[in-house]
């Protein structure tokens, strides 16, 4: 700790043209705090953070290396839980279904979300329409799953009746066929979460520099060209946030899936997190469940990093051009 050598209990002593001047300042302003001082300031936050994320993370690693929850007690099994995953067909099929589900959801949500945002931006009823579009997001995912379960039900579901009347579906409900059940989940996800992309994109659209748009139009650019050349690069950072949020949500949310299909029929919607739920809380094989969760976490982090890199390219390019 560096002490001010002129500091006294009364104040800080200095000399002006030979005269002694005593500055009556609180000592704290004159003493550079030690690093431990900062540590203690941050300690409460660090403890909370450790309790809610770091401790469970290490506990997850510990569990993945043990056979947990048997009546005989927890036993160390090394990497056996991971080895078993290599030959577990349901694990790999779960990954495949998860990528398929995530890719379709994100593609449609971004396309529809951005389109809606462009339409709504500056619309005379923008505020009212945004509020209306946001309503699905306000619903708890488990409730949304149950609502859509009843709408899709072949015995009393109104949507099933509608789709059947329009000739889109036969007597089999959308959740009763292995060919269409995944589509049902994607429809619900699009319905509930496209508004989030719309909202985020709208925020981005408000930040697009009007002078650039006008200059481009003066140069004869079409509205589409304007959107691609000016608007899109400007909303990249906003889109990145939306895509990251939706990507991570799709990789972990299972509420709707459990309520709507439970991973069926015939495991056609058993994405990896649903299988993880089964292994951990139906079979109570917590060690194997932890191994699956760890792989899911690692892949999510890697893919998020890649996403950031992909989107950072155009965004930084745009910043360079601007400067």
């Amino acid at each position, binding site marked *: 700790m560096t002490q001010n050598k002129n500091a006294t209990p009364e104040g800080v002593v200095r000399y002006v043209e030979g005269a002694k001047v005593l500055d009556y300042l609180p000592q704290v302003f004159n003493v550079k705090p030690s690093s431990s001082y900062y540590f203690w300031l941050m300690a409460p936050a660090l403890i909370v953070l450790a309790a809610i994320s770091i401790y469970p993370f290490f506990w997850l690693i510990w569990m993945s290396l043990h056979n947990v929850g048997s009546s005989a007690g927890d036993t160390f099994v090394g990497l056996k839980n991971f080895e078993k995953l290599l030959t577990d067909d349901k694990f790999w099929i779960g990954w495949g279904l998860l990528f398929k589900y995530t890719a379709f959801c994100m593609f449609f949500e971004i396309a529809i979300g951005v389109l809606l945002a462009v339409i709504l931006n500056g619309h005379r009823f923008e505020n009212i329409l945004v509020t209306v579009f946001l309503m699905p997001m306000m619903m708890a995912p488990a409730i949304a799953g149950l609502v859509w379960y009843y709408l899709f*039900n*072949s015995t009393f579901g109104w949507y099933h009746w509608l789709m059947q009347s329009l000739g889109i579906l036969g007597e*089999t409900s959308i959740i009763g066929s292995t060919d269409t059940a995944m589509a049902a989940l994607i429809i619900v996800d699009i319905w509930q979460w496209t508004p989030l992309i719309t909202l985020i994109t709208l925020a981005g659209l408000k930040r697009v520099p009007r002078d650039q748009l006008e200059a481009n139009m003066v140069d004869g650019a079409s509205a589409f060209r304007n959107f691609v050349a000016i608007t899109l690069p400007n909303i990249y950072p906003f889109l990145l946030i939306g895509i990251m949020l939706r990507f991570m949500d799709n990789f972990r949310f299972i509420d709707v899936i459990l309520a709507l299909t439970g991973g069926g029929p015939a495991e056609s919607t058993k994405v990896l997190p649903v299988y993880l739920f089964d292994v951990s809380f139906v079979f109570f094989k917590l060690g194997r469940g932890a191994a699956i969760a760890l792989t899911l976490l690692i892949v999510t982090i890697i893919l998020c990093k890649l996403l950031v890199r992909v989107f950072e390219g155009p965004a930084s390019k745009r910043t360079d051009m601007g400067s």
Partner: protein
Amino acid sequence: MIMRTPVQAASSQEAKMKQYAGSKLVFMSENTPPSFAIRDKIKDFFDATGITVEVLTDDLPVVYQKVGIDVKGGKADFPVFYSQDKPIGAALADYCVDFTKFIKDDTLPQDPDGYGADVWFDNFLDACGSMYEKGKIVALPYDAAVACTFYRQDLFEKYSKDFEKDYKYRMEFTANTTWKHVLDYATFFKKLKQAGQDVPYGYGQHLGTFAWTTQLDIQRLMYSHGQWQDFNIDDVLGSKTPGPTNWGDATSVEMMKQFKAMSDVSHPDNLANGTLELNSVYQAGQIAMQVQYHEFAASVEDEKTSKASGGKTAYAPCPLGEASWIKNGGKAVNGTNCGIGGIAINKNASEDIQRAAFIFATHAVSKKLQYSVLSGLGGTPTRKSVLAEPDVIAARKRPTKMPNALTFEAVYDFGIKAPNFVLGPKIPEVNEYHKILAAEVSKCVAGKQSAEEACNAIKKQTDNANDI
């Protein structure tokens, strides 16, 4: 929270009942009529014992998950819980208290009817109470769901002559009706439907999301044909080391083919229909037959919600095995299975909490309460003495104020008796087994794999789950 006033063997019954006055218990149970009835009448129990009981109810899979986390975590937040025989009982038996120590304890109040196997319906105590060790009772029978056939008597009468013209025998349901007959009936109704007639489909299966009832659904078919069983283990006690499964043998492949044939003529949304949905389909008048649990009779007979009410539905035993389909040389039986819901006590709880829980458990399985549930909410008793009540005897025939009693002949007088009744398989990995089975059966029904592939996939995964 536990409070205790010590009592002696010679103390009065009232003192024994009140020895834990001021204590509080949490009962985690399935959302079925007995639990609602207990909750409605919980004041009676409080008045008699001074023990406060909070009754929490949820869907069976959620009950299992919550109780599983509690007991496997070494906790006793749920000192007393609902223990459905296989999904909870077989999986968590090691965490349940042995009731025999309390039954012999003369400082605890005891049910005057007792708890021996003879006071319950046949096999009920074994179904939920006997797990892996002879002589131990890990749960007392609390409610029951036994399979029987629900069919539309009005439609059977209406189309019987047309059916007879095509198939050369009568369309009817008796204890001698075989699975082959059921397949014929379902095929007949589907043909009528495809010809544009305003009739329901013939049949529906238990698929959907509830894996356990899918296992029970195919088990009835398989057990009917030569009493085929999933493992070579004691059906009553089960086994912690079941050895290789019998899936993949000739009988299982043949039965899987027949199950698939049944599905091909079943309700078009068969794959999405679990047990509850199947009953809704039947209530909506969309199918003419279902093998369903007898506790559902009350909803089928409810005129406000069911098109199959008002004497249109009749109840029969589960179908008999078809002799020509049997591959293992065994005999044909009316394969019947069940879910016997037990009430169990958490081993992690302290001795005093366990004793207080025992007082509650005996109340929950008492004749008085079971009779009141049957007459009030449509319960399914487990004590024989309930059926001896004069108004219950009268209720077995229409018109009835206790619709579930219409099934008692098919269930209590026939289905649960040897050689028809199958209890197992009781194995620790039972829930993983159910999931494996339901997934592969559904894939076969969906046409994604052959019967042989499905049976082999079940064998491979099940043996793997059991460390074979």
